[in-house]
């Protein structure tokens, strides 16, 4: 199949003027500005098949939003080529604009002082959606997201989650072939985020629209995306399935020990590098291990070779209250990936 999105060595740098505080700064700023060059993207290449659901991960400033802006035609790449739907996005041809959609969790596209249904009506006119089709789509989307009763409420009076649902409906009414979602679940509570995810998965499955999503919420990525792209400081760190990232024989060994050894003691006992052991705080801990009393759990990253020796070493020295082997959470893998990269340890594929 022809890929629907292609990135070839995309670089994006931008200059911002350095404006200092102090005397005459504005004059200087106007007459002789000093420019600082930033590199938001440093050569990123990949391609995406139609109908894919791709997650884009990275810390703040990694270049995720820049990439989405390039694909949705808001800004041109400094070098390299971006192609979406076989077009150059930055030309923003009419045909292109009618087939894409961009949702930014931080910016509303619906004007808040209107009831949602009136804001949608404007989008209907903008995208020239025939009346009948419009009604069918709105009915379907509102049903999937369970907001039929809220359509006549002024958007500003809706809760954050409801508002985001409306934003999504607004973004999808024209049945875009490519949807860019920048942090759609930001600020939402667990339940609302889950609802939204279910909807996105359903929409992707039914309508075969290609969706690219950025998120800080790893749940979003693991539950939705068949593929993840990880960016770090403008470079592609990983491109593949989320399963592959976490699997490769790696497991997390969970132990709660009567003696409560420190990180250093555990590392010395098990011969496992200290970076591969964590004591997550109760609130970060993955679901399923609460209610085990107040003893903190230690998580050790092990693989099939090191599992048995590690266990033996621990059992020889400590009294376990609880033991368990878990799949690696994506969140941890990514955290480690960034740390490793930062400290110069092996780069993963």
């Amino acid at each position, binding site marked *: 199949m022809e890929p629907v999105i292609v990135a070839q060595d995309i670089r994006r740098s931008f200059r911002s003027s350095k404006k200092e505080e102090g005397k*005459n700064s*504005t004059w200087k700023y106007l007459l002789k500005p000093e420019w600082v060059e930033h590199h938001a993207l440093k050569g990123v290449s990949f391609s995406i098949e139609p109908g894919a659901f791709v997650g884009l991960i990275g810390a703040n400033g990694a270049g995720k939003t820049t990439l989405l802006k390039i694909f949705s035609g808001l800004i041109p790449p400094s070098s390299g080529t971006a192609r979406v739907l076989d077009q150059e996005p930055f030309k923003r041809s009419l045909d292109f604009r009618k087939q894409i959609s961009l949702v930014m969790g931080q910016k509303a596209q619906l004007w808040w002082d209107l009831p949602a249904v009136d804001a949608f009506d404007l989008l209907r006119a903008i995208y020239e959606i025939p009346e009948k089709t419009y009604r069918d789509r709105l009915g379907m989307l509102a049903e999937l997201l369970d907001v039929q009763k809220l359509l006549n409420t002024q958007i500003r009076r809706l809760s954050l989650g409801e508002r985001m649902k409306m934003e999504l409906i607004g973004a999808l009414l024209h049945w875009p072939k490519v949807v860019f979602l920048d942090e759609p679940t930001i600020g939402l509570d667990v339940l609302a985020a889950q609802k939204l995810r279910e909807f996105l998965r359903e929409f992707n499955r039914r309508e075969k629209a290609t969706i690219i999503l950025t998120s800080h919420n790893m749940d979003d990525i693991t539950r939705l995306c068949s593929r993840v792209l990880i960016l770090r400081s403008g470079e592609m760190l990983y491109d593949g399935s989320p399963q592959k990232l976490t699997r490769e024989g790696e497991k997390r060994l969970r132990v709660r020990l009567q003696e409560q050894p420190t990180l250093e003691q555990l590392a010395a006992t098990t011969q496992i590098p200290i970076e591969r052991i964590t004591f997550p705080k109760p609130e970060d801990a993955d679901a399923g291990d609460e209610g085990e009393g107040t003893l903190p759990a230690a998580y050790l990253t092990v693989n099939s070779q090191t599992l048995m020796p590690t266990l033996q070493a621990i059992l020889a020295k400590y009294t376990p209250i609880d033991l368990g082997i878990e799949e690696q959470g994506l969140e941890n893998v990514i955290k480690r990936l960034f740390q490793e990269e930062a400290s110069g340890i092996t780069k993963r594929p």
Partner: protein
Amino acid sequence: MSTLRLGWRWAALRNGFLDATAYRVEFLIEVLGQAVVPVITQLVLWYAVFKLGGATEMAGLSYSDLILYTLTSILFSQIRGGDHDFELAEMIRTGTLSNYLLRPAGAVEFVYIRGSAPKLFLAGVCLVVGMIVGAIFGGIHPERMPAAMLMAFIGNIIHYQISAAIASIAFYWEEAYSVLMVKNLFVSLLSGELIHLGIFPEKWKWVWESFPFYLYVFGPVQYALGKWTHVEFFRALALSLVWLAVGWALVRISWGIGTRRYLSLGG
């Protein structure tokens, strides 16, 4: 405790000043817009009336009287504090007021102090300019300038208090800014910013006298130019102190009720 309370006021003043002057060009443009252009408009109008229309005097005022009044009025209208009132209404409407309710500083006072910082600086400059110009060219009495400027300053606070009370309409109604616009029209007329109040027929005099707005441009100009006696000035000053108290009460009441409503609606 009292130093602490003074602390935030000082910080707000400093912050407002730095904020305004960080954008020097824009600051100058604002000064230009607020002072120079309206004055040109007035001068041009008087030119039309006297030179093109052939009038020799208006309501007992000569061409030079009016020119002198207009030019002097720039010195006192500079202290006028921008769009504080609109800012207050916006804060209520958009909900950013919540950030202020958490702080020890009163929102109304905070907005005023921060916004008026650059104006106070300008007022200082105007005071010095007025005294120098008066000493060299006459017209303005240099020794009267400080007292006149004080009155302009008090008048400006009263104006702000009344504006803040009007801005509290935003607690109930989203389009409160339109009331503020009406108020601004009235104020520009009743303060003497738009034209010399003496041009109004004698029978209309009670209209502008029953509002405090003339205390912030017309009054100071009249005193600085020696048209008011010291007695008249001090009577007006005493009156302005009464208005100050009235304004304070207005703000307390309107914002007290409004804030309670705001909080009960969940901010």
